């Protein structure tokens, strides 16, 4: 039984190479971390090994766990690799090819002579039509012909499928036909997973909803099996605590909700890190930050304003739009493994990546491409003498690939070539930062940059300089921030209703709908077991000018005038103009948050000692400087230093160039500042 004087939460983040575990006793604030090799063939094995390691270190029993938090990329990987279950789709008669047609466009950045439509997750040969029709307002034009559903089930039986989605026209306005059709299919096909579009994404536009439905169907069996296996392992260990899974929106949800709509996790991979960064920044008193999570193949960039993580419905997984609420971030193909290539005398970096194997040449696994990591090695940013001797770097291999692949062909010096590769990679990331900041009306110079992920702290100060940012925060454990982030995540769900007809705000009608939505939220709180004092809801109105296609989410201000004024101000701020046109209310939404127990802040013991354990030569703009190597774990709160410095720790390396100074915050975070730094 969970104990009453502790509140133990354990978080497990499974990466390609390592599984990271963070465990906290929320009543004392004590934290334990562990790391174990991932087991790709059965991730639940490392899941349990890791939890045992953490429990052993803390001297706790498995049964004393109160919460198990987990982020999984099972759904994401199945979609990206096209390895979901063989699925089918049931749709309204006459509309079998909606999924194939898509939006009937050739993408704006594609070449019409060479582009081909990506193959759909479900081909037309596995799409079956049934007789029914609902109108735009939700009224039934043609009742559901149940015989046609049973007929469809008969065809589906011959298709050798594991899952089927149902997506009917205008179901978001009236889901009755979808629900009944799903019921019949479950009856007729008891061994097949059935999902409906309204379970996953009850919003207008049939192509995007159909696509989300089939993606959800195709990942259902895999995710169900995966979650089931983990729950079984936890049960075997006598863990009674609920399993909470990370969603794309940055909140966690119970496993029942995820089983119903596993697609909710498809964009969750980078979300936990953002939540973790926000939490640490908050402990340092920083509310406006831009996070840059740099891994091996990609970088995820997110802006947090006033401590709030923004959400978007414009997410994509691989080729597919997935318009479900996700943390509003931009992902680009630039990471430590991104390769440099020269075509037609032009140097490009990424989106191709050397991946984990062979990886950068410097890793000594036979990599022959020049990567971003190799450029760092050439410049001395990643010294051979890193702590723990966990990975020997092959400096000569890095120099060879940079020389042969880049410096030679372009007639540049070795160091200039390496600097060029980093400049291009940094520029990609700066472009992405601009998308989340300037493009949305925020001046990045007023934000703190928070780099994390294995490669983030190597790029943080360079990105800050390009962006004119003068403050950078390095989290205590940047390489495993995702596990920490899980511990900081709240339970989250959204309840929304799109009005049958968009029009002027009718306050009484809106309040009535909000009341309904809050009731739904209350039911959800009950199901997830959220205590009354931890419940929080926010009312949001989605507004637009009459005729516009996209809405802005505006906090409900209680009156028409105030809400409209907030919309006008937001439109002006985002787009640079406002119109005299009529403002329409499109959708009302209640955002429900179940706060996890507050955690007391971590306090690092104070110490001003800064003792380098070695010095290495590092190339900074045209000169080589003997640079101190510092063991980050040896630093206490209040310690301060001046760049150039390289900070070494188990999960990452931080580069602090000349002109930057750092000090250690009592949370363990390091704050880097650039007094009087110019903006270019």
């Amino acid at each position, binding site marked *: 039984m969970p104990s009453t004087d502790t509140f133990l939460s354990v978080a497990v983040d499974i990466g390609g190479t390592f599984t990271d575990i963070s465990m906290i006793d929320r009543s004392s604030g004590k934290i334990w971390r562990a790391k174990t090799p991932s087991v790709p063939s059965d991730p639940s094995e490392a899941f349990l090994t890791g939890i045992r390691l953490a429990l052993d270190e803390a001297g706790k029993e498995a049964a004393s766990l109160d919460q198990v938090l987990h982020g999984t990329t099972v759904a994401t990987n199945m979609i990206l690799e096209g390895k979901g279950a063989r699925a089918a789709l049931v749709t309204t008669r006459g509309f079998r090819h909606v999924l194939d047609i898509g939006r009937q466009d050739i993408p704006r950045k594609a070449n019409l002579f060479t582009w081909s439509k990506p193959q759909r997750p479900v081909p037309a040969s596995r799409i079956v039509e049934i007789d029914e029709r609902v109108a*735009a307002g939700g009224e039934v034009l043609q009742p559901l012909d149940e015989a046609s559903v049973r007929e469809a089930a008969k065809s589906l039986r011959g298709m050798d499928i594991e899952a089927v989605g149902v997506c009917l026209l205008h179901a978001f306005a009236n889901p009755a036909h979808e629900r009944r059709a799903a019921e019949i299919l479950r009856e007729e096909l008891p061994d097949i997973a059935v999902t409906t579009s309204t379970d996953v994404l009850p919003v207008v536009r049939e192509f995007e909803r159909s696509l989300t439905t089939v993606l959800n169907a195709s990942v259902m069996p895999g995710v169900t099996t995966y979650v089931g296996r983990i729950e079984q392992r936890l049960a075997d260990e006598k863990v009674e605590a609920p399993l909470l899974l990370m969603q794309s929106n940055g909140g966690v949800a119970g496993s029942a909700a995820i089983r119903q709509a596993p697609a909710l996790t498809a964009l969750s991979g980078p979300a936990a890190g953002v939540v973790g960064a926000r939490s640490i920044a908050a402990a340092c008193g920083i509310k406006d930050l831009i996070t840059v999570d740099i891994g091996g193949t990609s970088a995820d960039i997110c802006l947090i304003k006033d401590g709030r993580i923004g959400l978007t419905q414009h997410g994509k997984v691989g080729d597919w739009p997935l318009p479900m609420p996700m943390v509003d971030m931009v992902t680009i193909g630039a990471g430590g493994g991104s390769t440099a290539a020269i075509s037609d005398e032009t140097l490009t970096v990424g989106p191709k990546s050397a991946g984990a194997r062979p990886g950068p040449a410097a890793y000594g696994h036979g990599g022959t491409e020049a990567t971003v990591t190799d450029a760092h090695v050439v410049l001395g940013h990643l010294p051979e003498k890193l702590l723990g001797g966990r990975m020997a770097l092959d400096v000569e291999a890095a120099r060879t690939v940079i020389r042969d692949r880049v410096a030679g062909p372009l007639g540049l010096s070795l160091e200039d070539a390496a600097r060029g590769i980093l400049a291009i990679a940094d520029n990609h990331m700066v472009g992405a930062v601009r998308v989340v900041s300037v493009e949305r009306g925020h001046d990045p110079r007023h934000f703190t940059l928070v780099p994390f992920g294995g490669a983030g702290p190597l790029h943080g100060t360079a990105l800050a300089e390009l962006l004119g940012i003068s403050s950078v925060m390095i989290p205590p454990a940047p390489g495993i921030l995702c596990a920490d982030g899980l511990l900081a995540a709240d339970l989250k769900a959204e309840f929304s209703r799109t009005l049958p007809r968009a029009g002027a705000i009718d306050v009484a009608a809106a309040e009535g709908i909000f009341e309904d939505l809050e009731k739904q939220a209350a039911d959800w709180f009950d199901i997830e077991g959220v205590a009354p004092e931890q419940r929080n809801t926010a009312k949001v109105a989605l507004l637009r000018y009459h005729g516009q296609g996209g809405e802005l989410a505006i906090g409900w201000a209680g009156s028409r005038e105030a809400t409209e004024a907030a919309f006008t101000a937001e439109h002006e701020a985002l787009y640079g103009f406002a119109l005299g046109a009529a403002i329409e209310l499109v959708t009302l939404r209640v955002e429900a948050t179940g706060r996890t127990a507050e955690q007391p802040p971590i306090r690092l013991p104070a110490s001003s000692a800064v003792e380098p354990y070695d010095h290495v030569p590092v190339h900074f703009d045209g000169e080589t400087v003997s640079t101190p190597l510092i063991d980050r774990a040896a630093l206490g709160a209040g310690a301060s230093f001046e760049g150039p410095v390289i900070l070494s720790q188990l999960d990452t390396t931080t580069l602090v160039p000349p002109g930057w100074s750092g000090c250690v915050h009592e949370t363990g975070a390091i704050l880097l500042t650039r007094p009087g730094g110019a903006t270019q």
Partner: protein
Amino acid sequence: MLDRARTLQAQEPAPERTICDPVSLEIIRGAIAAAQSEMEALIERTAISAFIREKKDFYTALFDENGIMAVGSMVPIFGDMTSPVFDHFPPESMKPGDLYWYNDCYGSRGAVSHSNDQVLLAPVFKDGKRCAFVMSWAHFADIGGMRPGSISPDATDIFQEGIIVPPTKLIDAGVTNETALAIFHRNSRFPDQSNGDMRALMASVELGTKRVSEILDRFGTEVVADAFAQLLARTRRLVRAKLSETFDYGTHRFTDAIDGDGHGNGPFKMRFSLIREKGEEDDRFIFDATESDDQAPGPVNYIMNRGVPGMALGLFYLGGDPAQVCNAGGPNAIDEVRLREGSFLLPKWPAPLGMRGLTTMRAISAIGGLVNVARGGAPAANSAYVVTIMRGNFRNEDGELERFLLADGIGVGYGARPNADGIDAVYFVAQENYPVEFLETGYPVRLLRYGVVRDSGGAGKHRGGCGIVREYEILAEDALLAVRIDSLKNPPWGIDGGMGGGTGRATVNPGTDKERVLKPLSDGNRLVRGDILRMETGGGGGYGHPFDRPVERVLEDVLGGYVSREAAERLYGVILSGDVVDEVSTARARADRPATRRFHRTEYVDALD
């Protein structure tokens, strides 16, 4: 590399030394692409008309200090966008904060080719020096003219196609000419849309100007100018090299045709030649369309801007390489473009132009045809995208009659490629459909069917793309319908054994005793509440012998509704038994392989004429 650089200097008025290094070049290119995306996102999010924000008929581009397009959009329809403005406003006279505007097809020599398209162009300055231009362009849903939507197959001169804006200074050093805007919006049947769309377009150019200024601040004017020059030189060099590979010395001819002008005239033949000859220093490539037919009384005339042939060939040769930039390097690679005034590709003022879309689509395929009569490698012909325009009145919730305008673009099948099928059911670059659920929420129609037309893709080893069937039930009290369909008499051609694509048609009340088939390019078709309109669009041509198409792909096409069992047997030699292939009969059928010739439209021929 040095040698190549020297050759380049001989060809290009490039600076003496390379000021912009490869790293900065890539960074500038990335920054411009990001600025373009930002401008496009702003238009999409803030525009008011469905034509812009849902269908997304808008593009952006960036030009060097002399107005040469350094970074365009991925469309082969842009020519010389800036010189029309320079004719009236010399670049030296321009000031920071200026914004220029036009939609004048004749006054811009076809830079815009129908009046609905509004072009906004702004110079970008740094330290008092003009360094670049930024453009946004969008199709406005209604700018006046004889019918709602401004374009109509009935038009017989350009004045029936809406208000004409000659190159005009819309903002003079920060001061907006509100009167010009007021006149323009007053001429629209939907002035609120016109106003909202214009504000969105203006905001996007302002944003682009700001972004390019930041790039100039960061790198300096010389480096940026050199980057533009390099981007242009790179594309030109690539296109010239590929042209040399494709075309031997001599004259290469290709002829294609549109069916008619909707006024009983046609077909109109486009006769293209690509001539390669030895010049004094280097070879000369000449595009010649002078032998094309005379201009049409109806609105299918297309003022082919002199930049277009090179832009289309450039885009084809750039292929899918994301490191390449579509810009004026394509047009610059062509030494001369010959057009004949009075032909339907360079009509005399004031011939109508509104339906030029079908001619444009055909011209793009015919330029590919030039490649195919030489060394080959270009796609088979695309079908020309289709439009239905409905205007009328419906009874709103209060029981009052309300006016509506629905211009619905419908995708077609594109031509098959040497290595891939043609694209099924697609309209054009960046232009999206109106989703069924969107249409039914905002317009008095209900859709009964939205799918692909079986057997419309030309048979081939690589199948031509299939067209679309879109069936509307009319809920409006009454509506006047215009349709734009081409290629019934001259279907899209297939190549190398690939067969021609299927044809489109528009039918009212199909399968009933009130059935009537509409003229494919016509206006004034009256529809009333309860009528059913079935639009079927054509497919693209095939590539390669149909018997070489893998059996399992033919099977998938049959099961997916793209190819009928009958066609699988007759055209592909694939015989099905239930839902599986009858291997023995198929092998027997495929052993008897029909002979083919170079092209196929309705039958195999050695050359099209």
